[in-house]
């Protein structure tokens, strides 16, 4: 009965080789988020979708892109991963109205070699 599902749990990619992380949800929430979490640091918001509207954080590098083809799915594309992009990537969802609590997936741990 997982509600926010991220695939894969672990991803190893080569330096500079494009990689895509995926997230799906069964909650029918309007809002989907991608966070980056490095070791011993707070999760950092990269961007979020409010329905189809994409909202990029000002300090998110251009190397990071996202797609949301429908309500249930959202993808994080890293065009040219660098060693500094190794991190845990967290997907979360929330309702647009009412209680704005976020529901998180288990994360994808990205290793860049």
């Amino acid at each position, binding site marked *: 009965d997982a509600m*926010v599902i991220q695939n894969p749990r672990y991803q190893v990619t080569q330096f500079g080789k494009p990689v895509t992380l995926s997230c799906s949800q069964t909650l029918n929430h309007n*809002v989907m*988020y991608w*966070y980056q979490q490095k070791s*011993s*640091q*707070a*999760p*950092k*918001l990269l961007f*979020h979708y*409010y329905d189809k509207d994409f909202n990029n954080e000002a300090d998110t590098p251009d190397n990071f892109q996202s797609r949301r083809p429908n309500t249930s799915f959202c993808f994080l594309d890293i065009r040219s991963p660098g060693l500094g992009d190794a991190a845990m990537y*967290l997907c*979360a969802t*929330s309702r*647009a109205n009412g*209680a*704005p*609590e*976020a*529901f*998180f*997936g*288990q*994360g994808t741990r990205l290793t860049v070699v």
Partner: protein
Amino acid sequence: AQSVSQHNHHVILSEAASLELGCNYSYGGTVNLFWYVQYPGQHLQLLLKYFSGDPLVKGIKGFEAEFIKSKFSFNLRKPSVQWSDTAEYFCAVSRYGNKLVFGAGTILRVKS
């Protein structure tokens, strides 16, 4: 800069000890406040939340938190911790819309 601060990065307690984890934020105006917990190998889970009303909120597993507006604080407490409370705890704040800003987290280890 506007931020969320958690005072301790690592806390070690013995079972049955009382717990208080500090959280301060620097945003003005109306905020929504959260504590999330991440057990080893698991995803972030909501522990408790404050939107309005009684500033003392109770969450799951015996946790509670108190919002003190004048101190910009939302400290997490538990009277008696258990070994199973070993986890990382994150304070988070949202202002406009739904965007959450997290503190750096506190790793709690409870010794049995």
